[in-house]
């Protein structure tokens, strides 16, 4: 592959100090996406390291990775807006229980209305980020 490569354990700034490159490798988001979850037929507007988005039901979505994570113990974060006047919340999958848990290849989440947080609701602006180790 004809791409340049710099091998270094530390990056050093002239005045601001230095940082180990493993901070960059381990602290970089490994996947992200953005989409409108209120559309009749949803689709990612943009994304990285995703193969599919699955519409599971009202306010319920599943993402799948192209490059798997090393296991299911990764960190998931995100934000959602229900509509112009309503904030939303995101809930990720649980470790065990009735809701399907994440695997190294995929995970799911719900969006809810802040006025009724235990009921899933479609959101029109959803963004998520995944941090953790890659397989």
């Amino acid at each position, binding site marked *: *592959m*004809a*791409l340049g490569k710099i091998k270094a354990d530390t990056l050093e700034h002239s005045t601001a100090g230095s940082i180990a490159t493993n901070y960059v490798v381990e602290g970089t988001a*490994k996947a992200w*996406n953005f989409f409108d979850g*209120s*559309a*009749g*037929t*949803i*689709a*990612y507007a*943009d*994304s*990285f*390291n*995703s*193969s*599919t*988005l*699955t*519409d*599971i*039901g*009202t306010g319920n979505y*599943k993402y*799948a990775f*192209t*490059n*798997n994570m*090393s*296991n*299911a113990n990764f960190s998931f974060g995100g934000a959602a807006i229900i509509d112009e006047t309503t904030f939303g919340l995101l809930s990720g999958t649980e470790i065990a229980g009735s809701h399907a848990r994440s*695997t*190294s*290849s*995929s995970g799911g989440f719900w969006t809810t209305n802040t006025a009724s947080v235990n009921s899933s609701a*479609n959101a029109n602006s959803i963004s998520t980020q995944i941090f953790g*180790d*890659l*397989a």
Partner: protein
Amino acid sequence: MQTPQFQGTHLFDRLCWAKENLDGVQSDYRVVYEDSVDECAKILVPDPNWMACALQGGILPPVQVYWELAKDEAKPDFVKHTRGHLLHNTKPVEAMTEEQAIEYLIMKDCPQHVWRDWDSGNKPKLVICRKEQLPATREWRNAWKISEELATDETVAA
């Protein structure tokens, strides 16, 4: 654009290359499947950047690699993947057509029990369709089901 020789390159690096060099491709295909009689139909949507990789060729690993990793993960003593190198070192698949890419995604991201015997039973458990064939709004989303009128011996994908 020619794909670099990627076998042996970390898959994440290949995705970085693709993000920088390929335009996303929004597919009109959708995969509708039912994996439980008690739940509504699910709609699988291809990722536009993934689809660009599939059409380009030489980037994605064979789908069998994901099955191998899933087998590892299903073992009771699984802690973390030790065969992630399969993603990076297995020879990448050649360019696919959009239809072949959809088949690949079904085998990657749909539950195996759905697609392995999709046409057994009284009605199809999985249908490939165009997005225009789905309801235009999400009203009654949790009641969506594959139409009972579809027979398993019909070609239902346009």
